[in-house]
């Protein structure tokens, strides 16, 4: 795990472990959808928190529920999905919010950069107006003031000739530009919590780095918290103070970044770290965790079918999510006691 140590050196450390109360504290978050064979829990019993000014990374493969978790924080779970548990944000429980309260909160206190920069913007409205809209709603700016501010925001995320770009429609911008515009839109009201859902996945590597830099700079300026989602552990390691690894709707490991890389405990996390390309070797060693997510299993450990260490006990009883070291939580029978 020499490579992991290099990552530890680069990982951000949790600055204030003794901070009074976190900005976001999620308890037992569960999202249930009606399914053909009874209700399906897409997200199951999540517990995590994010301190002010810090970044939580959420990692897991496609379909594990990362986006759904984020939508729950904005009250945007649609299609008959039901959210249970508590979402304590800045002292109030969002789960009991009314439609009006949600509308006050969205875009102002919590904003989200969506996964798909190509489709996440209205194709028939100029970019500047789409950004200005959120300012008109929450900061009561006039339309002209909002347009002016939108141009400033576009400039602040590094878009050249922002005044002209503000008049453009989304299809006239490149993928990178569009993602920057999305960031400008999300940051318009200086939210306390920014949810970034795979903000760089659709972009090429150089632009990826620029966008990450930009987000971190803006985070430092505004003391904003970030929930950063990716299926790429390498990207997350560059930005997150702590990391939650998800598998099939559940958290399997949750720890401060440096802990997680120095001492990955869950077999799935270990597999993810092993799949990271090693920068020291000329030939990239791409290890892939064999198998795929099995859905619908409700007894035993959900990872059992792919786990090299699985045994009968794993298939029979589901492991508890326990704190095995300060701040380091794991759900695996073979870890801890």
């Amino acid at each position: 795990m020499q490579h992991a140590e290099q990552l530890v050196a680069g990982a951000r450390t949790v600055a204030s472990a003794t901070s009074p109360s976190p900005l976001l504290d999620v308890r037992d978050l569960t999202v249930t959808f009606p399914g053909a064979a009874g209700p399906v829990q897409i997200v199951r019993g999540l517990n995590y928190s994010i301190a002010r000014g810090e970044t939580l990374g959420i990692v897991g493969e496609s379909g594990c529920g990362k986006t759904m978790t984020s939508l729950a924080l904005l009250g945007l779970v649609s299609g008959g999905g039901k959210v249970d548990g508590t979402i304590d944000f800045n002292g109030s429980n969002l789960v009991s919010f009314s439609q009006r309260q949600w509308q006050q909160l969205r875009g102002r206190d919590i904003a989200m950069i969506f996964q798909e920069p190509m489709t996440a913007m209205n194709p028939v409205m100029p970019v500047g107006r789409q950004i200005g809209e959120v300012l008109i709603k929450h900061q009561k700016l006039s339309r002209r003031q909002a347009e002016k501010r939108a141009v400033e925001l576009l400039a602040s995320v590094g878009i050249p000739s922002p005044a002209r770009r503000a008049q453009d429609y989304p299809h006239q911008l490149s993928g990178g530009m569009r993602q920057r515009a999305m960031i400008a839109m999300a940051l318009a009201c200086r939210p306390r919590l920014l949810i970034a859902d795979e903000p760089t996945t659709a972009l090429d590597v150089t632009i990826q780095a620029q966008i990450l830099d930009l987000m971190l700079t803006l985070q430092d300026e505004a003391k904003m918290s970030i929930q950063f989602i990716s299926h790429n552990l390498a990207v997350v390691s560059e930005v997150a103070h702590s990391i939650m690894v998800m598998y099939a709707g559940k958290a399997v490991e949750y720890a401060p970044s440096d802990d997680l890389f120095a001492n990955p405990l869950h077999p799935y996390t270990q597999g993810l770290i092993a799949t990271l390309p090693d920068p020291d070797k000329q030939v990239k060693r791409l290890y892939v965790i064999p198998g795929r997510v099995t859905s619908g299993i409700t007894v035993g450990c959900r990872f059992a079918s792919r786990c090299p260490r699985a045994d009968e006990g794993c298939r029979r009883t589901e492991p508890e999510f326990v704190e095995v070291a300060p701040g380091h939580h794991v759900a695996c029978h073979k870890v801890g006691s």
Partner: protein
Amino acid sequence: MLRYTVSRLLQAVLVILVMSLLLFMLIGLMPGDPVENMLEGNPSLTPDTMAQMRALYGLDQPVYVRYGHWLYSALHGDLGYSSVYFRPVLEVLGPAIVQTAKLLVATEIISIPLAMLLGALAARRPGGWTDSLISLFAFASISLPGFWTSLILIIVFSVKLGWLPASGTPLMGDASLSEQIVHMILPVTVLTFFHVGPLVRYVRASMIETLNSDFVRTARAKGLSESAVIIRHALRNALIPMVTVLALGFGSLFSGALVVETIFGMLGMGKIIYDAVSNIDFNLALVGLLLATIVTLLSSLLADLAYAWLDPRIVLK
């Protein structure tokens, strides 16, 4: 945009020329002889006089010569004489065009916003009671025949209540505007009811799809109210596919207008073309059908322009 429009109009002129030739030949193939028709029942009719008549009207000439003559006069403003109405074709068609245009325009002006409103309301909660009610209305509109609704409305509002006239046009030629409008109420209501049902269903389907799209989720994530999301973001996007539906639905609207015009005794385009074809009124049928072609061409041009206006991704070239 201007260049595009001009080139499309030039193309349209070409299409109209070709269509006029085709129609000229097709109408010529219709069974029945115009001269026989005209002189029907005339006891002094001999094969000789008939041949004379044919020569007089140029009917003994080959079709391309006749077409050439027709085109020459048509381009000089002479579209010939109607053998059914005994008046110049333009004089017959003029008022009919105005009549039908009034009916169609009034119907579209009411139908489109109404369909948008009902479709959007229904899409807000698919399966809810508003949706069920609106679907029922759309279903009734699609399945009840136009002549049936016309008769029911006439019985209720003209015969029983006596509130509205049963005819679509005032008897006097110089009726006041308000009188003309009062006469239009029932025909426009029937045609709107006939026309709006399919539109509502399309708007609803298109709206439901749009409301599930990513950018609508983005709009909600900004904290916009649901009505702002629908009006500012969803509606315009949902309307883009509606343009085709409207352009294609124009034909069905026109045939609906024929039924309505017949029942309410209005002398519109539908009635004129019907009379012309069934009585082999060559000149009138030709120009009437050509006009229908022109309207179709214009509506497809209009649809393309509307596309470009609604969707900035479309560049007309």
